[in-house]
C-alpha cells in the first residue's frame, strides 16, 4: 500500500494568482499522477509526473497552466497558474503500487474568487 499526503488540504485564492500543491508519498513509487475533480464530476487526468523528465500532459492541459515538478520518487508538486474561477476543483495526486493498485491522496480543495 501507499500513504499519500497533500498540502494544502484546501485554499481560497484570488483570480490571477498561482497555487502550488504538494504531494508526498511514504514510499518510492515510479508512477505518480495528478487529477482534477470538478464539483459534482468524476476524475480527469491532468498529467503523469515523471521523475527526471518533463511531465506528460493529457489533452486539454498544458505545462504553462499546470507546471509539475517531480524531483524524486516520493514527492511531486502541481502548480495551478494564473487562476480563474473555472479552476475551482479538487486536485488529487495518485500513485500506482504493484500491478493494479492505485492509491489517491486526500485531495486539495481549491476555490478561486
Amino acid at each position, binding site marked *: 500500500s501507499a500513504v499519500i499526503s497533500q498540502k494544502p488540504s484546501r485554499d481560497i485564492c484570488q483570480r490571477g494568482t498561482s497555487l502550488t500543491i504538494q504531494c508526498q508519498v511514504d514510499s518510492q513509487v515510479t508512477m505518480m499522477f495528478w487529477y482534477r475533480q470538478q464539483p459534482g464530476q468524476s476524475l480527469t487526468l491532468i498529467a503523469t509526473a515523471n521523475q527526471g523528465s518533463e511531465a506528460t500532459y493529457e489533452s486539454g492541459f498544458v505545462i504553462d497552466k499546470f507546471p509539475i515538478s517531480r524531483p524524486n520518487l516520493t514527492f511531486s508538486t502541481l502548480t495551478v497558474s494564473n487562476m480563474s474561477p473555472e479552476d475551482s476543483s479538487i486536485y488529487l495526486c*495518485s500513485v500506482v503500487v504493484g500491478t*493494479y493498485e492505485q492509491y489517491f491522496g486526500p485531495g486539495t480543495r481549491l476555490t478561486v474568487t
Partner: protein
Amino acid sequence: TQLLEQSPQFLSIQEGENLTVYCNSSSVFSSLQWYRQEPGEGPVLLVTVVTGGEVKKLKRLTFQFGDARKDSSLHITAAQPGDTGLYLCAGPPYSTLTFGKGTMLLVSP
C-alpha cells in the same frame, strides 16, 4: 478515449435495503476497478476485476465483471449508512485510468 457510463447517477435508500449499480462501456477493458470516495477524501480502491465473468466479494459487496469485459456491476446487500459515498468505476488500471462519472449513494438510517 474509452468511455465508462455509470448508472444510476444518484441513489437514496434506507438502511437494510439491497442495491446494484452498473458500469457499462462499448469498449472491451482488460480489467476494471471500483472505488469509493467519501466527502473530503480521495477515492479508495475496493476491487480490481480482471477476468470476464469474474465475481468478487468484499463482505456485503459483490462485484461482477461481464463475460465480454465491457461491463461491471456492484451489488450491496443490506446497505448501511457507512456505505454512503461516491462509487466510481475505472479502467484500465495502471497508467492512465478512465473514470466513470460515478454513482452517488446515500444510505439513511
